[in-house]
């Protein structure tokens, strides 16, 4: 496994197959948490943290316990429970040990349990038959792509406040139209990784 392959996985996870703009996963926090740049940065950090930890935890469980025991059909239930437990643990640990970080991303943590992006990444990690290193690189890439998309939209929305939007396009409609344009821009990355 060369560094080049890892780099390819990283780039295609972050840009080419951007989890929001190309795969439509994780739209709820994307729409909900993008009203300003500070919020979206906090959410992005929290997602990155949980996504990497969750991928490692589910990858280990899957390869060392579920596949050997032939319990693949419990995948959905176990993965979602692992994420839920992880989020609870993380919240408790951060509160005690790193209060500053908890201040910055604490309020976003409970929202993450039902974030489909996290669950999807854990599924893809085992689907693609990645090894541990690849899973880590992949999940960091996806999380970065998520944060980029969130930040871009937040930037647009902050500017939109000063623009004249037709009355019935105000609110969500114009957000989706902006997303449409962002998605077109991201299509330019297709074919980047071979």
């Amino acid at each position, binding site marked *: 496994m060369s560094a080049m392959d890892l780099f390819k996985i990283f780039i295609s996870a972050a840009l080419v197959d951007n989890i929001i703009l190309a795969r*439509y996963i994780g*739209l709820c926090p994307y729409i909900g948490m993008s009203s300003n740049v500070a919020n979206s940065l906090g959410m992005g950090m929290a997602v990155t943290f949980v996504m990497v930890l969750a991928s490692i935890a589910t990858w280990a469980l899957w390869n060392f316990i579920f596949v050997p025991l032939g319990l693949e059909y419990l995948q959905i239930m176990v993965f979602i429970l692992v994420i839920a437990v992880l989020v609870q643990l993380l919240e408790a640990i951060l509160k005690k040990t790193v209060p500053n970080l908890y201040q910055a991303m604490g309020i976003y943590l409970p929202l993450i349990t039902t974030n489909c992006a996290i669950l999807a990444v854990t599924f893809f990690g085992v689907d693609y038959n990645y090894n541990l290193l690849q899973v880590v690189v992949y999940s960091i890439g996806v999380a970065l792509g998520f944060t980029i998309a969130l930040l871009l939209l937040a930037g647009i929305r902050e500017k939109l406040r000063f623009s004249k939007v037709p009355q019935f*396009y105000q609110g*969500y409609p114009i957000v989706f139209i902006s997303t449409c344009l962002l998605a077109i821009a991201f299509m330019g990355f297709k074919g980047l990784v071979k």
Partner: protein
Amino acid sequence: MKEFWDCFKNGIVGENPVLRLMIGLCSVLAVSVRLENCLFMGAAVIFVLTGSNLVISAIRNFVPNEVRIPIFIVVISTFTTIVDLVMKAYLPALSEALGVFIPLIVVNCIIMARAEAFASRKPVILTIADSLGMGVGYTLVIAAIGVVRELFGYGQFFYHQIFPSSYQGMMIMILPPGAFLLIGIYIALLNHFHRRDNL
């Protein structure tokens, strides 16, 4: 009976989960390239929504408040897995087309939100009405998007050619940007009519 009907209608018009509450969007946009996919996705969501909320409502008096969320998750993921396994076994082509979005029903916010807000508080009969209403509301929106995307993207309706075969197909409708564009337009239209009614 009237109460039953009101609960049902609420999910379709008043609090349509997709267009009004902005939840459950991922699968709506992802699978709506073909109308057939939309209907099966809708059916899967209705099954999981109704099944799990029925169970949650039935056991609501025995579940201690502290662990209600984990129990909801276990119940919902059980129903999701059932749908996933059954689809893989009997409808392999569709299961391929819907891909990860079937397992992702488990984190579909509609289901968790309804379990928390409705099923864990109300009797079984009303829960069924509410779940069916929400599910049908979801299916209508996804089908409305699917019909436009399939028609303009492929020139087809349920795989039947509608436009002349020389029609090239609007690429954007099949690709992600088209989905975002359409849902934006739909919400704008809804806003428009809603506001006019209120005047």
